[in-house]
């Protein structure tokens, strides 16, 4: 096994992860690649689910011993573990917190947050605290941020400018970013994927706003695509 971390998902993640580790970070783009066994594989993709499943199956077969940190904000960790061999090596996380380089990152694991996993992540990364949460779509951060964006879309459709919406939320609530600035970081279609997953799992209130649905359609993005 090499001393390298392999990442696939949003392009901004590579440099952020590299800042937190002395290990070499290989950014694979959107698709995993062949090579020596990495120490850790990070799958930060949210969907579509069939593509995520195929990639993870391929990764699991190609690298049967490697620990996998997988985005579990759109698909339960429990579901993803059923896709692969040696499922106990898989940990769920919310990639959005990693993308904004938050101080605390959330992870989903077995009922008891495995000591081995916790120690390994702490050894590999410095400056990040790991907070175990229950395995649920939306995790914690995305569960709040995606609906904030969804709410703001109603104002966009009424002709309120992005600038005014962001300004109002930042000044009125002291949020670090306005709702539409979050979409600049994560991508509106990715917000739509989180909303779709929560809509499916937790009810009507997460139905993506028509503007988000349209954007997803234009980009050909869908949780089930």
């Amino acid at each position, binding site marked *: 096994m090499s001393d390298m971390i392999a990442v696939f998902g949003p392009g901004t993640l590579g440099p952020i992860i590299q800042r937190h580790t002395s290990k070499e970070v290989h950014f694979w783009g959107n698709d995993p690649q062949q090579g020596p066994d990495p120490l850790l594989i990070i799958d930060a993709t949210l969907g579509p689910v069939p593509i995520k499943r195929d990639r993870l199956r391929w990764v699991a077969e190609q690298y049967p011993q490697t620990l996998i940190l997988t985005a579990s904000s759109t698909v339960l960790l429990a579901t993803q573990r059923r896709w692969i061999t040696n499922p106990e090596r898989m940990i769920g996380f919310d990639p959005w917190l990693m993308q904004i380089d938050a101080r605390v990152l959330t992870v989903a694991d077995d009922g008891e947050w495995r000591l081995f996993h916790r120690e390994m992540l702490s050894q590999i990364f410095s400056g990040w605290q790991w*907070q175990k949460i*229950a395995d649920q779509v939306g995790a914690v*951060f995305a*569960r709040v941020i995606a609906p904030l964006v969804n709410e703001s879309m109603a*104002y966009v459709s009424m002709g309120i400018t992005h600038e005014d919406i962001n300004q*109002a939320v930042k000044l009125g609530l002291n949020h670090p*970013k306005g709702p539409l600035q979050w979409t600049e970081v994560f991508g509106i279609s990715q917000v739509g994927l989180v909303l779709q997953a929560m809509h499916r799992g937790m009810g009507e209130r997460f139905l993506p706003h028509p503007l988000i649905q349209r954007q997803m359609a234009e980009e050909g993005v869908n949780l089930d695509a």
Partner: protein
Amino acid sequence: MMNTDNLIIVIGSGTMGRGIAQVALSHGFRVHLVDSVQSQRELAHKSISQGIGRALENGQVSPEGTLNWSERLTMGPDWHSLKPSWVIEAIPESMDLKGPLFTKLDEEFGESVWLASNTSSIALTAIQGMATRFPHRVGGLHFFNPVPRMALVEVIAGMATAPNFVSAAHDLVKGWGKEPVTVPDRPGFLVNRVARPYYLEALRMVEEGVVDYADCDRIFEGAGFPMGPFRLMDLVGIDVNFSVSQSVFEQTFYDPRYRPHALQQNKIWLGHLGRKSKRGFYSYE
């Protein structure tokens, strides 16, 4: 034509009313602060005096703007015979109180006087409906607490509000160093509406056992939010936060997105309202 003598009548001398008065006085305006209770007026005077003193010390207002502020402040139980350019209402959030007040203001003041409500949750169009003579000069100026420190003012146009109300409101609050944003007259306006998931989803996650409240705060504070949802609810007041959710929920004809949470209701029943009662989600003993 608008009256240009820089007189603002502020009705209600609670936290918001006195804050609005302080800001106007700090920018050279004359203010008449209305409250039927003399002891409240005295408290407001003291608070404004302290607030202006602190703001001067901290360089947040200019000595020129605040010059002779106490001579520009009058107070009383009513407003009769005054000729203001603006009347800003800041009384408790009750349509039973605001409705009759706006009927009276509309009857007593000429068309050139702008009438604004500092409501945070009542539909402006409903308030306009109580001002049947000149509803077009009625709109919303939603200041945020604490008024002297919070830059944002939501300018709300009801269905009948004239466009020049909006432009006059922008000019007024910009002159007070504020940042106006025009928002539609929909339940919660903009900020309180967009903010609902921050509180409601956090409450639901705690109930579902996804995370506990302290860890939830830690996650959001670690992501750059100055306060996590639970610490913020304690600061704002769990009862205040609950009543905003309830108001938005009712005004959206019970849209489940805004359904208030039982955990907040339970805290209110126990008197655990947040910092002000020394106990909310956290203890402040």
